[in-house]
């Protein structure tokens, strides 16, 4: 059993880009991106909750598309560009979507918030003036237990109003 464990864990080289910096890691090819981010790289803004792709707490962008990192394995990240909540805005600044969540109170406990913001950011980049149906579709995989989504919708509304998605300082 231990041999099997050892065999399973044979590391492979993962090369990708995370938040704009090249990363090279020795890691089992089946290791989940969620674990790589949280446990190996200390990027704990990406959250662990259901680990079956249902809640969106672990959402990251891979080549600009929202992906559940709990369902993504290391080998699938090779050569990709990964953006986590920590990389949405330059160090010390806020992405406009983050700014809108902050002002409108689009969070309570905040545990769903990084994933939610990642999904909203990706939605507004694809579709700057989404309909309610598009919002529903884009956020169908992001659960929030605290807010009842009221604050989240107000944040999205404000972000749509503000238009521009460029980073603020």
């Amino acid at each position: 059993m231990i041999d099997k464990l050892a065999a399973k864990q044979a590391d492979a080289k993962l090369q990708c880009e995370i938040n704009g910096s090249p990363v090279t890691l020795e890691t089992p090819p089946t290791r989940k991106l969620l674990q790589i981010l949280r446990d190996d790289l200390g990027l704990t803004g990406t959250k662990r909750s259901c680990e079956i792709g249902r809640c969106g707490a672990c959402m990251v962008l891979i080549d600009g598309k929202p992906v559940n990192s709990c369902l993504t394995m290391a080998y699938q990240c090779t050569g990709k560009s990964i953006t986590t909540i920590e990389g949405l805005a330059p160090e010390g600044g806020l992405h406009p979507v983050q700014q809108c969540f902050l002002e409108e109170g689009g969070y309570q406990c905040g545990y769903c918030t990084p994933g939610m913001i990642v999904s909203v950011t990706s939605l507004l980049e694809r579709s700057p003036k989404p309909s309610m149906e598009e919002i529903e579709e884009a956020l169908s995989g992001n659960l929030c237990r605290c807010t009842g989504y009221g604050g989240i919708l107000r944040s999205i509304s404000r972000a749509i109003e503000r238009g521009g998605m460029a980073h603020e300082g």
Partner: protein
Amino acid sequence: MALNRETSGNRWRIRPDGPGKVTGGLAYLTDLSAPNMLHGLVLRSPHAHARIAEVRTEEALALPGVHAVLTHADVPGLNRFGIAHPDHPVFCEERVRFVGDAVAAVAADSAELAMEALARIEVDYEYLPVVSDPELAMREDAPQLHERGNIQHRNDYVRGDVEAAFAASAHIVEDTYETPRQMHTYMETEGGLFVPEADGRLTVYSATQHGLMDRMQLARILARPEADIRIVSSPIGGSFGGKDELNVQPYGALLALACGRPVKLHNNRFESVRAGLKRHPMRITMKTGVDAGGKLLAHRVRIVSDAGPYSTLSAEVLNFAVEHTLGAYRYEAVEVRSFCVFTNNGMSGEFRGFGGNQALFALEGQLDRLADKLGIDPWELRRRNLRQRGDPGPFEQPIAQTDGARQVWEALPASRLWLERAEAAAAAEAAPAAPTASAAPAAPLGMTPDADLRSASSGTAEAATLQLPWLKIGYGASFVMHGAGLGVGIPDPAGGRLTLAPDGKIEAAFGYEEFGQGLIASLEQMLIEKFGFAGSDLRLVVGDTDAVPDSGSSTASRATSMMWQALERMREPFAHSLLQVASRVLVLPKERLRIGEGGVCDAASGERLLAYRELAQSAAEPIACETSFSYPASPVERVGAHYLYTYCSVGVKVEVNTLTGRVRVLDQFHAVAAGPVVNPQGFLGQIEGGASMALGFTLTEDAVMNSGMYLTRNLDSYLVPTIAEQRGRVEVLPIEELPDGDAHGPRGIGEVGSVGLAPAIAQAVFNAVGKRVSKLPIDPAELQEVPDIVKEGSCPV
């Protein structure tokens, strides 16, 4: 005025914990790690009820990289926990009573190794019969789960001659209401980091709703002085009552001390489902009679609550349910019999609403059924029976008097939603042939940005789909009188401390927890508004037993009320001390000074004269102020009776699809009479968020069990509302006015939003399709109708 960002003006503030939350920079306790850290896991029973014949741990211990394998033999102190009645084994000795019962725990170099170690622990079980139906569990021939028997708690309340009152009744309705095993589903599952310190103390970084309670319980388990344990317990990724009891803490603490190394535990979701608390499933039978004029005469209630295997706060929840099955109404005679019953089902325990959710679903259902019999408007029936100002509480106990009941009653008919309902009814009367057209949404008043977003597209979609004959619209309402505080019979301490710290920060320390509700935002806002400090003058200290005074628990909608009262008590003396020292330093009379932003100011010009940092440096001894008191309680013997109440009226509009049986909530109105709004954003969020939980309770949520086994394992089959279910509008109207001379200030609002929606939806469904729902979550099959086309047996060509 509806509560939103615009109507709140500059009282709508950015929360102090906001930046960390939107950037992901805030470290939750399950995000922590430490050098040299081990990973802990708990071995739990796969059986709902079994005798443990033998546990063999040698193979697991022999695995390289495994540092500890613990069982009950390794617990130095009390091998039990539980806030009120410690009967939950840390590790089971001879018997497991549910599928989450802990038998052993391991710590290893990696999570994978810990998992492998668990697999190598051999436990021989002998199956015992499973007790899964609380009614059957009460029978004398049922297998007994505890020495004290299966009935954990009974609570009866009888007043007047209920038989005579039924005999005098013109109409009587009787029904049995069933509610689901709702899961808290905090997004952050239980976990934390447990660190043995160099000085021999233990630091526990793990979520709870009452740090000092955890410290006391851990001290008892570990057989160590409380002073040797520090609990750091905030921030928390949601709790809703679910992290109030100990969960992973005993295992983390025992493992860390056994290994002398930091240990981390973080439950995966299934672990959380199987081991965690749920809302008590209840069966509530009610028989209620009125006279011909609609006056409530007789009310008979029987409650059977499924407590699961151990006590938790099941007795206290039952007491709360008893009080709230009486609710806001006057009766000639009442008789409540209630039972809380041990079973081999999952753990039941405290959950936002605390038994009020189940009680109100039944009680309000009765009022709606009676109104139907009487042929009068259900809201009018409530008016005729409401307790009036000056009346005692549900147990006839003295309560703090307000006009809340009348105020929220009046707010509903005046609401936009109810005006729209009246218009729809009038239009339907005028054109009975085409009732659907009249239900097209009226132009909404007082729209907020989210209302814009929510109605912009759904409005057109709604207008289009409303023509479809299988979509039926209905309105319903409910009335809530919800108690806050722990109630008579339970110590309910409160308190806090203000200090001018050596670095010039005004430090506010409270023994409360931040689990998302916005506690520290409310604390900051009160300090700014009551004293005149700036946000940047403050350091808010919560969730650390080494740093906070005893403030009681962050439960029962009590924390904000208690912070408000504590600050009221400390305002004078603390400001006095600050100004007195400032007056000495500045050589100015105290009367010419006041507290200001950044420092002490000239009372007239507002000019800052002395920064707090300088003030701190010039003070001979630290300037501090501490208060301790208790949550106000009613002066009666009746255990569980409350003194402060929040009143709420809830109106909803729903759409029932009779083809699929699905219910959509299109619009909600909540009027909440709870005194002054401390923090508008928090207030709105509590009502909206509570209502969302109630929506799940009503329509989709149930942790399904079969013979004591969870069929629900994760969020693929446990359905909490998504944004699609929440696209309807939610309007919140706070009623802040309190009687002159009221000394209690803001009432609790943390739970009340989760209570009233279920009965309102049930009534709206009845109005839409004429079917009474008495079991939650609503089974769509009950609402499905055979389409006319099928009934006629022909298809259009």
